[in-house]
């Protein structure tokens, strides 16, 4: 018997020793950790942020944005001209660019990309970003003419977004539904090697790449040979994996873990110069109780967004006072924003004035009906906490909030309905005009204009801003539209989120980029210490 015991113990010990080798990291391979995966890596068929993160590495746009997110810079187009009437854009393409399969990049790819996306039979997403396109033609191999039916002042800025990434149209035709799933041939600093959904995406260095944008420290080729984007669905595990060195970089670290990571000497917290993402509560004004602006203002004044910024985001977000950041292009500094502060006493007074009264400090009533509102939100940790905080704040002024939280895959369908009063979410944007085009046009009802804001004056001003051919005219129109929608109290802005990139000891310090919430951008500046 003793013999059996000894043998077993020996086996166990050797197994333990064999398995306790340190976690080996491959040199020249950076491991990026994130929570969720994209539905596919086709820039014309995905709206997912998770898709943008990888597509910016494997593909490029004609025009790109500098780190301030305001200054346009050449991308695949080395220069461009816009006609005086704002209808014709002529792009002069770089001649030194090639795809990952070594095929040279020419005007044919640009025309093919736009033709595929804008084809009415193609189930492409976000087509509105392209403006009202008359035609996209190749003048010669390196000149493209982009003609619009009407001027669109946002076009060049929209063109920096990942939906405008130039694809290999031949590959898209060949792969059909598997394009961006099985393969993706792009001109980016990295090449798409493989995708195992919900597990990882592997990118390898585009060896011939030399055409990085001027504002990047490294023009190419990339410093790291391989990038593995791993999915770690558990927030706590993700944070732990950065500390143990199993992952090198992540920008999906929950706010609560940041202070702990900050205290770890080998961990670096890097922040982009600019980045626009605002969390807000939207109000559906066509619901019976929310037609009254006083009620909407009361709800807005009752919610303490500073408390949310401190307690839920641990200071990694700023309390928001407007629907989009003050730093965003075409923000109107003269807007009246009193309705978005925190003043529960004024909120109570407004509800009294609107006829909603509470006799015993309970839920307010009017005509025998309680002030009870339905709130839709997401199931994520911080979203849940925000919903609870808002529910608590509103309870203090006598409003009963029925919170219903849904999984991200379900919530979009629920938000298309007319069955809720309030909803909460966050959104990324480029500028005030971008935000207004998306949310406040009557043509975007019932979604994403879930507030049902149907105002001809707003429509007309946004349209004027889009058609403007000078920066001054554009600002004037968007500024006025901004003042109108803020005055109507359609949202309660909560916080402007700050993007934080957490990098481990192997990563050399670098400057993240705030574009579309994809701070590693094209990956050129990502460098591993030897």
């Amino acid at each position, binding site marked *: 018997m003793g013999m059996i015991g000894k043998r077993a113990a020996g086996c166990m010990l050797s*197994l333990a020793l064999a398995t306790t080798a340190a976690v080996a990291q491959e040199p020249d391979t950076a491991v990026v950790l994130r929570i969720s995966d994209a539905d596919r890596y086709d820039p014309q068929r995905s709206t997912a942020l998770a898709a943008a993160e990888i597509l910016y590495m494997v593909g490029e746009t004609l025009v790109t944005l500098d780190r301030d997110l305001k200054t346009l810079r050449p991308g695949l187009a080395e220069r461009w001209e816009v006609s005086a009437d704002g209808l014709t854009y002529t792009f002069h393409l770089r001649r030194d660019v090639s795809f990952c399969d070594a095929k040279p990049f020419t005007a044919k790819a640009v025309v093919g990309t736009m033709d595929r996306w804008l084809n009415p039979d193609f189930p492409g997403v976000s087509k509105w970003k392209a403006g009202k396109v008359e035609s996209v033609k190749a003048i010669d191999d390196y000149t493209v003419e982009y003609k619009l039916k009407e001027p669109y002042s946002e076009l060049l800025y929209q063109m920096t977004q990942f939906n405008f990434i130039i694809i290999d149209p031949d590959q898209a035709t060949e792969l059909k539904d598997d394009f961006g799933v099985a393969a993706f041939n792009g001109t980016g600093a990295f090449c798409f090697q493989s995708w195992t959904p919900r597990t990882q995406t592997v990118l390898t260095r585009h060896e011939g790449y030399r055409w990085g944008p001027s504002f990047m420290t490294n023009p190419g080729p990339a410093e790291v040979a391989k990038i593995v984007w791993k999915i*770690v669905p558990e927030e706590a595990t993700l944070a732990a994996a950065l500390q143990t060195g199993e992952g090198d970089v992540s920008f999906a670290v929950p706010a609560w873990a940041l202070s702990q990571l900050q205290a770890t000497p080998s961990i670096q917290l890097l922040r982009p110069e600019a980045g626009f993402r605002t969390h807000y509560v939207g109000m559906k004004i066509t619901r019976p109780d929310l037609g009254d602006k006083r009620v909407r203002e009361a709800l807005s004044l009752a919610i303490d967004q500073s408390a949310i910024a401190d307690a839920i985001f641990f200071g990694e977000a700023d309390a928001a006072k407007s629907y989009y950041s003050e730093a965003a292009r075409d923000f109107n500094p003269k807007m009246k924003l009193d309705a978005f502060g925190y003043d529960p006493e004024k909120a109570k007074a407004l509800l009294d004035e609107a006829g909603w009264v509470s006799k015993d400090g309970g839920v307010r009533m009017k005509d025998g009906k309680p002030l009870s509102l339905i709130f839709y939100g997401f199931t994520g940790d911080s979203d849940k906490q925000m919903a609870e905080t808002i529910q608590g704040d509103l309870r203090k002024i006598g409003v009963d909030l029925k919170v219903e939280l849904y999984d991200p*895959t379900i919530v979009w*369908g629920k938000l298309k309905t007319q069955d809720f009063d309030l909803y909460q979410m966050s959104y990324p944007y480029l500028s005030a005009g971008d935000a207004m085009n998306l949310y406040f046009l009557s043509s975007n009802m019932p979604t994403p204009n879930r507030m049902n804001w149907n105002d001809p004056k707003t429509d007309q001003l946004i349209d004027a801003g889009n058609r403007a051919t000078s920066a001054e005219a554009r600002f004037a129109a968007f500024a006025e539209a901004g003042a109108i929608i803020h005055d109507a109290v359609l949202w309660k802005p909560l916080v402007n989120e700050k993007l934080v990139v957490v990098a481990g000891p192997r990563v050399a310090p670098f400057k993240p980029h705030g574009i579309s919430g994809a701070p590693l951008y094209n990956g050129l500046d990502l460098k591993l210490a030897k």
Partner: protein
Amino acid sequence: MTRQLLWRLLTSIPVLLGVLLVGFLMLQVIPTDPATIIAGPSGTAAEIEDIRRQLGLDAPIMMQFWFYLLRVMQGDLGRSIINNAPVASELVTALGPTIELMVASLIWAVPLGILLGTLAAMRRGQVFDRAVTALSVAGVSVPAFWVGLLLLQFAAFRWQLFPLQGRGGPLWTLNGLHHVALPALTLGLIFIGPVARMTRTAVVEVLGADFIRTARAKGASEFRVVTRHALRTALIPVVTLIGLQIGSLLGGAVIAETIFGWPGIGRLAVGSIVSSDFPMAQGCILVLACGFIVVNFVVDALYGLLDPRIRSKVR
């Protein structure tokens, strides 16, 4: 014996049909619509209607189930809503790591459980026996996710002896072994308790039998008496138990795979349910259910083989 097995095989068919129906209905009652998910945040009502027609979601539920059955019988499990990949090939890819994890758990947990149970039986009533009993009770009562999280916190995070997440390669490579260690430990711990307890009871029972007394009288060493005579007889109920426990191992695998990011069927099932990827979730449920049915079938067959008395009764 053959007739018994054939009968078992036939009775598996309604079970399988039931599983398919329950899996199908479960996904019907979830308050969401696959067409809305495919259409995405910017999909219009017309687009959603169109997708619903394409997917056959406008047909009555029983018709939908019938079409689903026909497709499953042809081996077509549909395509993932999320990445358009064929469900069947994704399932095949994920099945390997799950089997690997189960093998890695059984390979250490079964021998250790039998060893502990045997030693406890031989030291009946002594401190060691009580310790093994306590361990068995703990092993049965402690949930796998708790053990998994503790291992994650200490072995992987604090002491950094093992990786936190993922699969490092095939089992026979050092990296593969390194990665499988914690999930296999978690899963194996569920197993040790019942195996040790059953072995102990069976060995205690057998040690009192006449043929053991005869073996001792013949002058066989205690080691030989236990390993050659007692254990062989005592193992029959243990094998049955192991077979039955493999079913719960499949359930445990869902938890261990999720905690340790192991790319198997369990994680695929959880991931596809969370992301409302209906065809994939249905496929996972089908594979897990088939796993149960196959394991039960094999156990029945083995049971007959191991115990001649059962074989002769059936015949």
